[in-house]
């Protein structure tokens, strides 16, 4: 599946040259770029390297499953940010706001649908989760639209001001969240039928995690499909490669960007919603907590690259879970260490975007 996400990353010019000078059959086929599988291999290497360290196989499998689930959620939350950067060179430090918003909306929806969540019926519980997820995405997307208009638009092309202003906007937003929902933490107990975990073979997997992974896979497929099989996706990928060229072909990249920003915010809301459900508690700092992971992930993946973002998120998810089990105090530093190692290997990230 991840092959389908393949961005035109590696030497397109060379590929075209060899195609035109090569045999006649190759001339009318669009040259396919080779997919770089090494980073994916890195995920497997990391997982295998942790096996002997963790010791017991069933624990290792449980941790791996949890790590992949976490990576999925982080990827959902981070995908918008990396596209926003890739498309418009906008460094959005306010992304954490949408994550927090998603988590809080979920808490409110769960409280409002208490009759649904307290029933031991899977259908009603999933219904409540569905409503919560959709409400989070809708609100986060709407706020994202406003955020783009008020905060981001006046400072296009000025990185320093972007960092400062989006950060300020996030602070104001988070304080508003505290004013509306209160500064104290809110418990977010999972719905009745989704509590506890199931045993798959020897592996203990949280039921709620299964649900969030399922949602994550649906979103991932939708995202990959949109990016690779639709006109809009084509424009987005082209815009990431070369914004000016897309503009000069007559497309309004601004409008496209606003859409991507809103969609990215909605995805961040979804990520926050899932994150909150899995943590079973919502605190005002939730956005900032996830935001740090997201920054690590998108730098590691290569700013602007969607595949890189996915691989980076999986790496960070696995790393966090293994180290959290082996040496809990070093959890945060391990992710940073991983990023440092990756950047030493590939200074521009796992999947560098050519024009940047």
């Amino acid at each position: 599946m991840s092959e389908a996400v393949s961005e035109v990353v590696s030497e397109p010019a060379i590929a075209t040259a060899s195609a035109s000078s090569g045999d006649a059959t190759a001339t009318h086929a669009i040259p396919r770029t080779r997919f770089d599988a090494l980073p994916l291999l890195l995920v497997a290497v990391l997982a295998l390297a942790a096996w002997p360290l963790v010791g017991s196989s069933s624990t290792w499998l449980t941790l791996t499953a949890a790590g992949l689930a976490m990576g999925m959620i982080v990827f959902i939350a981070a995908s918008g940010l990396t596209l926003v950067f890739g498309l418009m060179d906008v460094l959005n430090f306010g992304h954490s706001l949408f994550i927090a918003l998603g988590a809080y909306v979920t808490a409110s929806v769960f409280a409002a649908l208490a009759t649904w969540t307290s029933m031991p019926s899977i259908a009603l519980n999933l219904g409540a989760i569905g409503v919560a997820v959709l409400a989070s995405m809708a609100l986060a997307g709407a706020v994202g639209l406003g955020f783009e208009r008020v905060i981001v638009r006046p400072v296009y092309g000025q990185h320093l001001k972007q960092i400062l202003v989006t950060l300020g906007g996030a602070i104001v937003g988070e304080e508003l969240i505290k004013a509306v929902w209160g500064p104290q933490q809110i418990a977010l107990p999972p719905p009745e039928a989704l509590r506890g975990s199931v045993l798959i073979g020897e592996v203990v997997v949280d039921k709620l995690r299964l649900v969030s992974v399922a949602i994550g896979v649906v979103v991932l497929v939708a995202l990959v499909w949109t990016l690779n099989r639709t006109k809009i996706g084509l424009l987005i990928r082209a815009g990431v490669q070369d914004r000016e060229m897309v503009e000069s072909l007559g497309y309004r990249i601004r409008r496209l960007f606003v859409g991507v920003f809103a969609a990215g915010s909605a995805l961040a809301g979804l990520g926050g919603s899932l994150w909150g459900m899995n943590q079973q508690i919502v605190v005002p700092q939730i956005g900032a907590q996830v935001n740090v992971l997201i920054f690590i992930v998108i730098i590691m993946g290569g700013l602007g690259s969607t595949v890189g973002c996915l691989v980076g998120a999986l790496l960070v998810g696995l790393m966090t879970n293994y180290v959290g089990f082996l040496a809990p105090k070093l959890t945060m530093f391990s992710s940073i260490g991983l990023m440092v190692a990756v950047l030493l290997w590939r200074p521009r990230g796992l999947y560098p975007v050519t024009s940047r």
Partner: protein
Amino acid sequence: MLRRLLSHDLPRSRVLTVVLIGIVLGLALTPFIFPGTRALNVAAKVIVFIVLAASFDLLLGYTGIVSFAHTMFFGIGAYGIAIAATRLGPTWPALAIGTAAALATSLVLSLLIGLFSLRVRAIFFAMITLAVASAFLTFASQLSDVTGGEDGLTFQLPEALRSGTQYAAEPFLGASIDGRLLTYYLVFIAALVLVLALLRIVNSPFGRVLQAIRENDFRAEAIGYRIVVYRTIASVASALFATLAGVLLALWLRYNGPETTLSFEIMLDVLLIVVIGGMGTVYGAVVGSALLVLAQNYLQDVMKLGAGAFENVPLLSRIVSPERWLFWLGLLFVLSVYWFPNGVVGRLRQRAAAWRAAVADRASVKAR
């Protein structure tokens, strides 16, 4: 003499000169004009924040890079003193060792972060420093054997700096001449020296290169300056000054914990001080710190009144409440980045320059 002390970087605005002299004199005479511990505490906080913000300005205002790890170095300085004083006892050598160890730690850390992230890409710096700083905050709160965890460390200073040590039998102008007063002036003079040193740095040829990099890094590289080296040196220097600010804070508070030095709120305060005061002018840090710390300490009382007035309006009363102080800071921050990018100092200088131009105009008309 004064020109040399200020490294020929004069305020260049009459109003600004008056304000600066007012702040410096006010801080120097606080123990005698405003009696009471609260005023003295506020003044000491202003002094420490002037150093902290001025050192951040070297990075943000002069080099044009955003770091979120500035409070980390601030915290390292404060923890250096706190840990040394608790482990080695309240002696002068212990304080010296603590300061030296903190400076060394900051040097190594900032060098690593700088070389690593600035070499890759300058805009990574903001994100990487944010990640490192938050990891450091968690680490410091979890390492409770050394840092005292969330509770922090309370410690004693050497005999000469304790409030029990009296130097004069009679209070002078309402202030008792004791070790506490000595500590205050120690902090004051150290801060003065540090700020003057920062002025010296930003007005040296090195500082000029930094400004060139801020304006156009590509061109600066083309002229032949290794921008990675310059940016890294700037970030290391700024980290060292922040460490010293942390040392001063720990000396004054005789306490350090994650909330006092490492928290993200302090980082925001510093950002706000530099932006409101005026980026790329060391004087901005002075004006901004005085404004922000005073507002923080006295405006919250006003906000309490405001919250009382809006008690019946549902959401508004909660926004006006003193706990939502950060909301107003954030709003002010965004607005000042938009409409006030040069800050107070920049605005005052612009006005003064316009006024001087007008005067010169009139003079030339008369001459004709």
